[in-house]
């Protein structure tokens, strides 16, 4: 149900771009206004969301410890799973953000006890699918910087040539583009077909998947099959980046569909679960050191509470305490 709805939304978006550009000729709207608006929404939205989170304080020091604490000097402690200092926390976060450490934990668990053969389950694939998706996404985005810079920075060129090292076809096949599409398809399929995951899925879980599928598909179509005029595309994109928007004639409508889907994703980003990108850095169970007995953590809203004092306690039990030989303050 949620999947169908989200799929339908993406189809409507494609048709909108098609009708808007091809039918109504709204080039400026789809080539300039919407991308700017979407980008502004993205930047502002993300900033506002992060500010909103940051304004909630971290009252308690609650890292999830996944290894030995730092205690006695002769006990080896787990610097990355239970870090006691800032360097360790940075390491832990890097593992989490770059390698999906926690998801990777699932990997170990399926060695069967009896036959000693490995049984592959969905969990390993989730890590693999997740990491393939995110890394190829990042590389694709970096590659796209060539459309927004002049001259193109050296690292973009390096990544470009690495990504196309297979040198298949003309233009060269970019591996990450294909991996991205495959990974996002896998993520969709597991959501749709693993009953447990389907049960917990919301329409909001399918929408970004379909959007990204649409973006990758239109991108691949544009690069390898429909072959839009790359010079003109760059003229447009560089114009956007240099705040000097232009609409060169003769760019195929597939480009505008691609651009519109990207704009939608950008505009949608700050309001969606995609904000996990920013959120993961703020997560108190991961980004705090396990040093709460070494260094006092202050809660900004700590307030005095009603307590039961020793005096009240002794008043209540004085005779019994004296009988039991327990020292008291007042005889």
């Amino acid at each position, binding site marked *: 149900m949620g999947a169908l709805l989200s799929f339908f939304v993406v189809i409507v978006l494609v048709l909108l771009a098609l009708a808007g550009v091809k039918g109504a000729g709204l080039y400026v709207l789809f080539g300039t206004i919407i991308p700017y608006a979407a980008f502004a929404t993205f930047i502002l939205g993300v900033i506002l969301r992060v500010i909103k989170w940051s304004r*909630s304080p971290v009252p308690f020091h609650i890292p999830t410890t996944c290894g030995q604490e730092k205690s006695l000097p002769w006990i080896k402690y787990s610097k990355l799973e239970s870090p006691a200092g800032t360097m360790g926390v940075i390491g832990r976060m890097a593992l989490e953000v770059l390698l999906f450490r926690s998801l990777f934990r699932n990997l170990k668990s399926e060695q069967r006890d009896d036959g000693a053969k490995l049984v592959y389950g969905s969990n390993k694939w989730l890590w693999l699918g997740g990491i393939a998706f995110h890394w190829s996404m990042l590389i694709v985005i970096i590659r796209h910087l060539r459309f927004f810079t002049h001259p193109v920075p050296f690292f973009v060129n390096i990544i470009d040539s690495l990504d196309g090292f297979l040198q298949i076809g003309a233009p060269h096949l970019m591996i990450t583009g294909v991996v991205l599409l495959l990974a996002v398809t896998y993520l969709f399929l597991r959501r749709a077909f693993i009953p447990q995951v389907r049960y917990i899925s919301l329409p909001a879980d399918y929408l970004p998947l379909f959007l990204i599928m649409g973006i990758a598909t239109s991108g691949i179509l544009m690069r390898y099959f429909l072959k839009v005029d790359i010079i003109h595309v760059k003229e447009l994109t560089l114009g956007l980046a240099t705040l000097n928007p232009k609409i060169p004639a003769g760019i195929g409508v597939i480009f505008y569909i691609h651009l519109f889907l990207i704009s939608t994703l950008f505009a949608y980003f700050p309001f969606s679960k995609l904000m996990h990108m920013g959120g993961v850095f703020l*997560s108190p169970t991961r980004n705090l050191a396990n040093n709460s007995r070494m260094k006092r953590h202050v809660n900004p809203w700590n307030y005095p509470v009603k307590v039961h004092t020793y005096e009240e306690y002794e008043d209540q039990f004085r005779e019994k305490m004296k009988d039991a030989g327990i020292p008291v303050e007042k005889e």
Partner: protein
Amino acid sequence: MAKPTKPTKPPKPEELVKIDYNPPEKPWMEVPVEFKPGTFCYGTRPKYLEEVGFPNPREWSPLDEDWKLPADWKDTVLDGLGERLKKNRAFHLFMDICVRCGACADKCHFFIGSGDPKNMPVLRAELMRSVYRKYFSTGGKLFGSLAGARELTFDVFKEWWYYFYQCTECRRCSVFCPYGIDTAEITMMARELFNLLGCNTDWIAGPVANCYRKGNHLGLEPHTITSNIEFMLDDIEEITGIKIEPTFNRKGAEILFVTPSGDLFGDPGTYTCMGYLMLFHELGLDYTWSTYASEGGNFGFFTSMEMAKRLNYKIYAEAKRLGVKWILGGECGHMWRVVHQYMDTWNGPADFLEEPVSPITGTKFENAKTTKMVHIAEFTADLIKHGKLKLDPSRNDHLKVTYHDSCNTSRGMGILEEPRYIINNSCNHFHEMPEDTIREKTFCCGSGTGLNAGENMELRMRGGLPRANAVKHVRDKHGVNMLANICAIDRATLSALMQYWVPDVEVSGIHELLGNALVMKGEKERETDLRLEPLPGKEEEDV
């Protein structure tokens, strides 16, 4: 036994069994909550709420049609929710960033044991997220159920009650979550919200009230504490021939010792307590017990942060009154979550205490520099390392031991090696359970966070199944007969769990094992262990 000569033709069997069991594939929001017998705790009696000044004390039961909530209960919940979003980043973040990847789904012991989909951590959290979206997010306000949002109704509130009291805040899901989303944080907030309306379980509210007024969960009054310990001292004297004389509420002692009151009362906690008493005596430690701060555990922690702080206050207050230098804490799970991650923040700074130094070895406990409270396993491991204890592990040769990491000490503190070091020095036979069921991946006893009541026994047995299953494995493989741990709730609840699932395995604290092995100055030849059962090789003489 006569066999039927001519079996009658039975009706379609799978129909018989399947009746009503496969619910129609409805979205979870449309499946109403059903309170099943043996899976929930009684509602609290009013007197317990009155004792600590909580709102809406009344007689009620979760099975009642009418929970006697105030007319504006909904506003109270929503305002409370909003306030907590503003005051707690973890909670706010965890409401927003879940991508429902499902990595946590099968990590919860309650899901594994019960199979109820709402016991998947992600769905447990969605129970609250859905309401959060409806009232606090733009998408939810605009698109309603399409954005995964739903109204807060009384049925939803009941559903929260049912499932947030089926979470033991064990944090296992948080280990596997790529963003570290910790369902414990969400459960804590849900329970705070319940308590704004006077909804708590009797099993939690009772100990809270006891602890507030009398200093410990069990409601032991000062003279009861001393006489309970005297019982143990008699046993120790019988076993070792040594008479121990601990002190209570003594000013000027170097160390204040705080342990969960479960150790003072009820087996097998008392055996662990005997271990502490023997160890401290053997060291000649200058320490004192307190009857006022006679509880290390904190059921307030399962109620609200404020209540937890009110109960926790006594530990520092008593340390200050008695003028001790530092505090030593006994074997307990959630007590150490609280001491390690919360105490200093709530009731510190403890600048009237000194940085803890072991008077026996001179070791500075730098990891407890500001909180000034040392875990007894750290303390004892240090003693053994420095060769300060004479241990005879063969006295534990009748035991084949495995070790259960408690949720709180493993995932909310990280004390993994010290207990193992102590066991390995006190026992000759130690076998680990399978890797995925220990250390940070340990399985809960199924009865933490105040779920260790009697009326929800079925729930406890389900939740504890993954743990019991791993114990069973090492019993079958290595003949394990003793499940050691460092948690008072474990000592109580694992006993019941073992009786049901793995009946020939008993439960102990690690200082019981240490007490068995500890060779004390001037002791007589021991005939029995701390349970007064004959030592290996002494069975004959005992007859």
